[in-house]
């Protein structure tokens, strides 16, 4: 059993309207030390797999095919024991 966390965000350079809205909301709450906010999504997978290399390869394929739209999104993968 292995827990894998996938984070998906809009690419740098692609306008993140949600991030911008949250940024302005935080500003209006007087948090004035923020320079940028990005909103993304987190997908948590439990894999029946003990081989980390295999898990990484499988999840990368999942990201490329479904979990992220690589036209507009980047992703990163964290293996959690």
């Amino acid at each position: 059993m292995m827990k894998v966390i996938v984070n998906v965000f809009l690419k740098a350079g692609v306008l993140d309207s949600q991030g911008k809205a949250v940024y302005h909301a935080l500003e209006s709450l007087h948090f004035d030390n923020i320079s940028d906010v990005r909103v993304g999504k987190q997908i948590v997978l439990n894999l029946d797999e003990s081989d980390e290399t295999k898990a990484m390869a499988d999840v990368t394929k999942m990201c490329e095919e479904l979990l992220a739209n690589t036209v507009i999104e980047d992703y990163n993968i964290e293996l959690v024991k």
Partner: protein
Amino acid sequence: MKVTILQFPGTNCEYDAQYAFEKLGAKTEILWHKSQSVPADTDLLVVAGGFSYGDYLRSGAIAKFSPVMKAVTAYAKSGGKVLGICNGFQVLTEARLLPGALKRNESLHFISKHHHLKVISNDNIFLEKLDNSDVVNIPIAHHDGNYYIDQNGLKELYDNNQVLLKYCDANGDDKNPNGSVDSIAGICNKERNVFGLMPHPERAMESLLGSSDGIKMLQGFLKA
């Protein structure tokens, strides 16, 4: 003329599309997404609007793996004509049959209203009944209609006359409701047989209901 209209779980514009094309004199068939093939007599395949698979993950992301999509891709690759409206446009970009992607509207709001569109290129079967710079009044209804493509992709679209429609005001001046790159509302592929747009021409078939400009648009496909 036979129009086949795709239906996924969550599609909700298939009957509007059927009404529109039957009004224009076409035969229609609604095709459930479990089908492994596209009917052989299909002259136009419509990927209708709605919320396929509840828009889970991303709009159109899960529909692209429906059984029928392999046949749709083969149909498109062999030159078959495909029209994606709204969620259908999203499905076609997710399936990489059209370039770019549809993001959340810049305002973050769902937008549902009539909007004017300007014809940018009529050098294709879809819009050949219209003239360039013609303005039509067509409903839009979407949350993820913010068209994105990178600068190289955008240049390629212009170079090949693939930008078909842009959002505008009643005079044809630029007016962007959702943040789309260059106010783009509709495009086609390089081969000019796959078309996608966020606005709903199939909902603009009766002037009593606000506009019948959809007739001029969809009629292009009716050519024998």
